[in-house]
């Protein structure tokens, strides 16, 4: 049985606006990260995969099933939208039970699986907590639980960590990694750290196009030899910012440790004190976006 999601030449328009441009992707089991800045087209692609938006052209197959067979696709897909919530006056259990009915689960199955899932997302002690009383992190965990309630083969998660505190974010990533052991989990995010921590395979979107697809290692390799670090004084910082794209910086008293992207044509060390360093995913992502911007400007 085909256990992939395959997208071939997928296009999506909103009126004249070309939101998805010739998307070609193959997504296999495990965590798949879809990275891109806000407005890149990630949510549109997620909604197309969740059958909530139709593509204008192209083909999509989910586990061998054409996406036009919405009912079957919905049976095998779980979706956590970007701004997930449930009716405020429902308790955690009631919300899960309601979604369970909509997912076609019978009473005994719901009784069996809901407590298990709530335990999995660490909401076992909040079964009677009203949705309106939940924190953002609790709601996202409830969102994940409802999305996998019918044991889908594909889980689509749109910007799940936005707005979460660092602790909740780490907990959430770990949860997604657990879930991805036996299914496809597509994680859309603009937070590089989410992808770095959880995904082996990734795609990067910009302006509706896929500008990179491959493994994290391949992304890192692309940025190899282009990332430098240096300890500079605060006075020098403005000049460095004008000349190079800073990927990160850390203030230490009067000094600042910066990581930056060297110009493509640089063959030597950019300036004295700068040291070539191994790129991390954030550096590589920034390098890729920077490269595309330069190319687009040309």
């Amino acid at each position, binding site marked *: 049985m085909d256990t992939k999601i395959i997208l071939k030449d997928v296009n999506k*328009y*909103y*009126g004249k*606006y070309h*939101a998805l441009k010739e998307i070609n992707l193959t997504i296999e089991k495990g965590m798949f990260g879809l990275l891109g800045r806000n*407005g*890149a*087209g990630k*949510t*549109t692609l997620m*909604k197309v995969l*969740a*059958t*909530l*938006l*139709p593509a204008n052209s192209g083909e999509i197959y989910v586990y061998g099933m054409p996406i036009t067979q*919405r*009912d079957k696709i*919905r*049976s095998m*897909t*779980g*979706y*956590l*939208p970007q*701004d*997930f*919530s*449930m*009716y*405020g*006056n*429902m308790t955690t259990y009631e919300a899960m*039970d*309601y*979604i369970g*009915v*909509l*997912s*076609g689960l019978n*009473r005994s199955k719901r009784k069996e699986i809901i407590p298990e899932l709530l335990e999995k997302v660490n909401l076992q002690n909040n079964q009677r907590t009203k*949705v309106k009383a939940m924190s953002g992190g609790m709601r996202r965990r409830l*969102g994940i639980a*409802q999305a996998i309630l*019918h044991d889908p083969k594909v889980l689509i998660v749109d910007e799940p960590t936005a707005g979460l505190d660092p602790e909740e974010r780490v907990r959430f990533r770990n949860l997604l990694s657990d879930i991805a052991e036996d299914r496809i989990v597509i994680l859309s995010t603009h937070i590089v750290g989410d992808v770095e921590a959880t995904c082996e395979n990734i795609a990067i979107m910009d302006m509706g196009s896929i500008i990179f697809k491959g493994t994290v290692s391949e992304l890192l390799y692309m940025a190899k030899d282009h990332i430098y670090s240096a300890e500079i004084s605060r006075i020098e910082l403005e000049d460095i910012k004008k000349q190079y794209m800073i990927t990160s910086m850390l203030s230490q008293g009067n000094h600042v440790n910066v990581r930056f992207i060297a110009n493509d044509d640089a063959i030597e060390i950019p300036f004295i004190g700068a040291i070539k360093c191994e790129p991390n995913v954030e550096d590589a992502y920034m390098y890729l976006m920077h490269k595309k911007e330069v190319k687009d400007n040309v």
Partner: protein
Amino acid sequence: MFKTLFLKECKQILKSISYYIFVASIVLFFVTQIGEFDVLVKPQVGGDNYGFKYSDDEDVIMKQSLKELILEFDRNSFSTYPVGFYKEVILNETKQEEMEDILNILTGLSMDEINKRLSRYYDGQINVMTEYGYMMVQDGVELDIQVLESISYDEYLVIMDNVDKLIGGGSSYHPKSLKNIARVPRSYEEAMEDYNSILKEDRVSAAYARQFSDYMGIVLGVLPVFLAVTRGLRDKRALTAETIYSKKASSWTIVLTRYFSTILMILVPLLILSISPSLQSLYFADSIGVKGDALAFVKYIMGWLLPTILFATSIGFFFTELTGGPLGILVQMAWWIVSVFIAGGNLVGYVGWSLVPRFNTVGKYSIYASIYDELVINRMVYSIASIVLLVLTVYIYSLKRKGVLNISGKLLPNFKSKSKI
């Protein structure tokens, strides 16, 4: 899945504040409008008053409406219902002169003569204590002004149509409303005939059920739309729409369970409210030796009121799904206002295309029998319209699930601002 989801929707409604406001509203309306049980009294020979009826006699219609016109003109205060609401019209000098000309044509009398006869009429009134307090009642002297014999009834209708236009429309003088002015006292025989029909045809309880339907129809012609709109907007407000769209359940299941749970939760308090008048009417029937129809109220609720409830609810569901906003309330309010006030003064036996048929009395079976076919057609048309709207609602919902209509419910298909991509 349908049954379980239906029950869950009912439970959701039970948790909603808007539902309790709805229940409180219909209870309040019931208590204030229907109130205590109005016991039927058998007409007695030699009684003072056997009630009124509307006359078909053209001479009576002309006489009564002319009298009403002269009295209103003398006060320069005309009661009208131009768009359903009561409005007092006061004529300016020019229009008063035009009205004087019309009265002159109708009666052949000058204004001086009309005023003299009016004075004699007013002099014949005495102040008496009635059950409503002190009132001026006529003590024998009638207004001695008639329509000229040379004016036919058809000509009279044309002139009254002009009177209605001069006043601004919506008055009792419109040819279609004219009959409602011609109220004449009933005879003992007529009163007995009505009384007997209540016993035989209505088995007492049906007569009360009709009055119950009349009153409750007014409030049920508009309140269900609020529940429907609230349900429709709940997904949007709670940010659950996309989550539910992505589930396996069909659009039919989702929309129909919401719709029918709303209908059931409207019917339940209505049926409970009907228990008291139903039992009272059955007890009363028993006391006069008639076996009342125990299911009369249920039959009238299902046959008379349910189409009203279905329609108001369908309008709410349809427009909320179509627009993603509360437009349905405005549409239903407009429909309701027209329906309630289109009857004008005809509160017993008005049907037409009104969403709220009127029968504001206990008894008058002959009138009910005469409007029965019209009423059945009216109720069927509203039921069918409700079903059509419901099917359209499911269709729109399924389009939104596919993303063919904008997910946030805007009318423009496939349009979305860049910032939301």
